[in-house]
């Protein structure tokens, strides 16, 4: 597996985990009393954060809410670095 495959696969993992949050957020919007769903939602946010941290520490922030890691800065990461999502 080369570096760019690794990056792509880890990004896909972030997309997966973030999607779980999106989906559970909509569900809990209309089911505020479903405690089981609320627990899943809280867990999903934690899991998504972990995977995002893994990605961002190596390949740089995905949004301006994350602090750039030393490693990302060392490899020359800038917010304006390509690829943008439509350039992949």
């Amino acid at each position, binding site marked *: 597996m080369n570096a760019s495959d690794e990056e792509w696969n880890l990004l896909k993992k972030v997309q997966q985990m973030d999607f779980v949050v999106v989906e559970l957020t909509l*569900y809990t*919007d209309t089911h505020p009393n479903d405690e089981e769903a609320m627990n899943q939602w809280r867990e999903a946010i934690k899991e998504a954060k972990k995977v995002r941290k893994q990605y961002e520490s190596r390949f740089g922030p995905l949004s301006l809410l994350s602090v750039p890691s030393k490693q990302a800065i060392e490899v020359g990461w800038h917010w304006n670095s390509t690829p943008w999502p439509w350039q992949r």
Partner: protein
Amino acid sequence: MWVYEKKLLYPVEVTTCNPMLARYIMEQYGGADGELAAALRYMNQRYTVPDKVIGLLTDISTEEFSHLEMLATMIYKLTKDATPEQLEKAGLGAHFVNHGHSLFYENAGGVPFTTTYIQSKGDPIADLYEDIAAEEKARATYQWLIDISDDPGINDALRFLRERENIHSLRFREAVELLKDERDRKKIF
């Protein structure tokens, strides 16, 4: 406010230049039942709906913007390497002379987007029923797009989007029930 995320909601993999397919997908980009219409519609309605459903309209509208970005990515990738001749053959000659290779909010027939496609009625039930209809129409359009497309990468992303329309429709139906319950409770007391 919103914060940009440097990733798509769901991966869009395109390997073949296909301007005709790009033109068809523009129906969901800048058409009457497309993602721009959906995103703008809900984002405007949310200010005057009951508190119980503000979150839902905000969250679905935000998700629609991420769908819009997926469609933009498809259109961009399907057309970026097309020659003017190829664009013309695909029915995008008029698009090319006006916009070059850039994207524009228009439907598959080249009609520019207009806010006359959408409503904000100041009546939550009327608004939510429009929203349910919008999701169902978008779902139908995605189905026709999947039927006409033979690009596996595009179809994978279109199927994801079609399923999201189903979920949004379901959530809006639940929102209607939440408001009806509230209304009925008020009558009792």
